[in-house]
């Protein structure tokens, strides 16, 4: 136990030991995000992540925004286990044919009003997998999408920024590749 405590104290709060420019960027995005989430979502934005066929690269980066360095929870953003509690769906793609039904059901299970963000190049337009017998391409081929976050995979900063712009009501559709 004493070792655990020592490790905790020695580690301190690691959130934000970033290089200055990156740190300012995350803090800037974070502060605005927190403000918007407080105003529009009563302080808490619940996100349900759905993998509709991704290679799991995007999942790694979505995990990363939960790590102690980005720590999205301090801005009021948290990930929920059920779509029933979600304000937002963060969907990675391409939509595989075998996930199409499950994605539609998850979408229906999410209460309205809801926001949907397509994450990653494949979520935006199918990426390298394209549109084939097994892949339907971008998320917007199956459910309606409010915003796109391109990147292969998008970095944690890009993800936070995309979430911010979407909750602010600025739909970064021009970002779409």
């Amino acid at each position, binding site marked *: 136990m004493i*070792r*655990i405590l020592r*490790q*905790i104290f020695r*580690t301190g709060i*690691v959130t934000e030991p970033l290089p200055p420019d990156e740190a300012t960027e995350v803090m800037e995005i974070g502060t605005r995000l927190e403000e918007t989430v407080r105003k529009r979502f009563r302080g808490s934005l619940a996100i349900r*992540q*759905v*993998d*509709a*066929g*991704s*290679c*799991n*690269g*995007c*999942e*790694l*980066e*979505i*995990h*990363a925004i*939960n*790590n*102690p*360095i980005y720590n999205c929870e301090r801005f009021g953003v948290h*990930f929920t*286990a*059920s*779509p029933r509690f979600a304000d937002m769906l963060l969907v990675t793609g*391409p939509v*595989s*044919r*075998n*996930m199409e039904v*499950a994605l539609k059901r*998850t979408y229906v299970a999410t209460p309205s009003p809801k926001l949907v963000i397509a994450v990653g190049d494949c979520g935006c337009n199918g*990426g*390298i*997998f*394209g*549109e*084939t*017998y*097994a*892949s*339907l391409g971008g998320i917007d081929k199956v459910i309606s999408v409010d915003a796109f976050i391109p990147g*292969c*995979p998008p*970095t944690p900063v890009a993800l936070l920024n995309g979430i911010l712009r979407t909750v602010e009501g600025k739909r970064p559709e021009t970002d779409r590749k």
Partner: protein
Amino acid sequence: MSILKDAITASLGREVRFIEDYQCPASVVYCFVPRERFVDAAKAMKKAYALLAAEWATDETPFGRGYGIFACYRWGSEYLIVNTEAPIDNPVFPSLTKKFLPAYRFERQIQSLMGVTPLNHPDTRPWIKFEDWPKEAWPMRKSFDGSKLMPREDGDYLWIKAEGEGVYEIPVGPVHAGIIEPGHFRFQAVGEEILNLEERLGYVHKGIEKRFEKLSWEEGFRLAGRVSGDTTVAHSLAYCIALESMTGCQPPDRAHWLRALFLERERIANHLGDIGAICNDAAFAFMLYQMMRLKEMLLRINHRLFGHRFIMDKVIPGGVAVDIDPQGKKEIAAEMNRLSKDFEQLVTIYEENPSLEDRVRDTGVLSPEKAREICAVGIVARSSGLNLDCRIFNPFPPYDQYDRLELDVPVMISGDVHARTMVRIQEIRESIRIIQWILENLPDGTAASPINPPEADKAGFAAVEGWRGEIIYWLQSGPKGEVNRCMVRDPSSINWLGLEQAIPGNIVPDFPLCNKSFNQSYSGHDL
């Protein structure tokens, strides 16, 4: 001098025909047997203690032939590929499942996607092909138009059932609770104890193998890098090595060493994440956050030095796309020292925590017998007593410098969650050491050699030890030198069977913990 070659010759005599100048590299033995002797070949391999590494089919109509059926066996550092043929008007072949368990899913997949039927297979349900696909849709056939969506049909998947007083069923997925990939698990349980687990995968089938056939040889490495995003370096590396073997391209030494550097960095990053996540699933969140911190530091340095957090698309045919300067070397050396110090402190905490130990020991046991039976690979195999590691048995430079590198491969025999964690811990220590050694001895030179497209009618093979285990690529060029087939075998294609075997007898709440300790890729399996 090849044990497998001798074994198959002793058993089949003149009926086995060894083919030279087709399969690259030449160290991989390639032979043809008549269809009716396919199982006898498997028997001979079994007798020689070989393991089945992969089984797949090709459509060889562009060559004016039928379907090719291939089984790849491994014994120590030897690989032997047995090929047979099924004519177009009689697309069947004898099943190997009763000899080698992993053939169970390989053959269901061959049946589902190529439409070649394994005779005497105990389970005829489709795999990856869902019940709503048209019955006659076999996407891996050349006659199948892969660019169009298929209509949906009615149909049901026949699940394994359990009956009796108090038996109940828990369906989980495909959309799971966490930030993870989709798959379906169905448990039969009595009280808390699990009687049976049945996996159903295929949800993220994106048609990757078919897609390879539409891309050029030069583009393929990018798709390979996206078979399983967390293993992007190892997958593109396996693709590149297979392609280079077909073209005779020799990447410069420096490129080999940098590839090894990337591979070990990928291994550390994923193992750190896994150790944290395993502890988190045993309700020890402290470790998750500590490990995530170390992982993030590593990814940032990747980004700064190599231009991508996961070093994606940096291993290219002929070499690597980024080099490292003396400043970068210094930075990594300092990073490794820091990481090693922090990591050791955390390992001590892991080892000295009795409540954690109580959860991870004797949980999710895959016995050495079962691991051998399913021909497990990678960390799963090494936690269950199988000493397998391509870095030792099928090395590329610098791993081939055994006497200088002295790679230590950890092997445990308890096969439980603890063993899989300890193997990861030990591998991180080794990887840190390898990286430091690479940095000290990195040869000078260029980072890539030019590469030509392969000749017509050739096959290439590569086996690379990714962080999960052995990744196999088998490439085949068509009559005009185009991509005729690109077979991908992620370690998950085999190790998912291990999870099914390890679960019965455990309690339902321990499933996430067991699953995390295997941490197999859905995307790499479903393709």
